[in-house]
């Protein structure tokens, strides 16, 4: 195994190193850009969920107006609508800020 020993000596002695540029700075910059993009995505996702909830509420309101159920119902339509809106928005926010496992805090 003389060849193997000699090769090991050559590798160890050479201390192979390659220019890596400003690797630390570049990688951190990319990571920060990635985190910023992720936060923006989460924000738009939350807006989307709230918007979806509001849309559902408006649809219910429209349905109540068109069908006139409010006049026959014991409860005021306004109270029902407000309750629906609050429930939907609360669910959307809860889903967004629910603690997720295996995520890096940012």
């Amino acid at each position, binding site marked *: 195994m003389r060849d*193997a020993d*000699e090769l090991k000596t050559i590798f160890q002695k*050479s201390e192979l190193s390659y220019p*890596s540029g400003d*690797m*630390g700075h570049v990688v951190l910059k*990319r990571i920060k850009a*990635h985190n910023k993009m992720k936060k923006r995505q989460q924000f738009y996702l939350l807006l989307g969920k709230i918007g979806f909830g509001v849309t559902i509420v408006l649809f219910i309101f429209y349905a109540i107006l068109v069908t006139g159920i409010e006049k026959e119902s014991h409860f005021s339509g306004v109270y029902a609508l407000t309750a629906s809106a609050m429930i939907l928005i609360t669910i959307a926010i809860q889903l967004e800020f629910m603690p997720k496992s295996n995520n890096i805090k940012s």
Partner: protein
Amino acid sequence: MDDLYIRRVLNGDVEAYGYLVNQHQQLAMRTAMSMIKNEKDAQDIVQNSFVQAYTSLSKYRQESKFSTWLCKIIINKSLNFIRSRKPLMLEDHEIADDILVTQNEAIVNLDKEDLSRILKNALLRISAKEALTLQLYYLEEYSIEEIESLTDFTRSNIKVLLHRGRKNLQHILNHTSHVL
């Protein structure tokens, strides 16, 4: 020490990741260069690998060292790069079958910079798999079992690559030393 910085990163300290990058960038570059053979492409792969390691850091189980885990990412990315662009680079080939490879003391006695330059050039000329296996075994001092888990090469494959890589590298180094 790596574990301490990993915990800090997982707690939201992005700057702490800079320590991990600085500690392991040379290992990362050597691993990528052994396969990619081009500094610019290797730097891109290493940067991408560090970013992927960051985004997947929560999945890192501390059963193996961070450097080993990072190496696996780099090797996978390098293999994908090679397969997509230069599939022939993965081919193993014997440079010389019938040439008697003799030990030459001139190479070993060179100074560090000359030796490094010659070795880098020699590694460029052997196949990616051979260069990777030699570098992991002789320079990073991984065992055959560790190389098996890093690369998904079989044990017998690794031994063949080591044997063939040694032979090819020695042949190139001997030719170089005759020119010096």
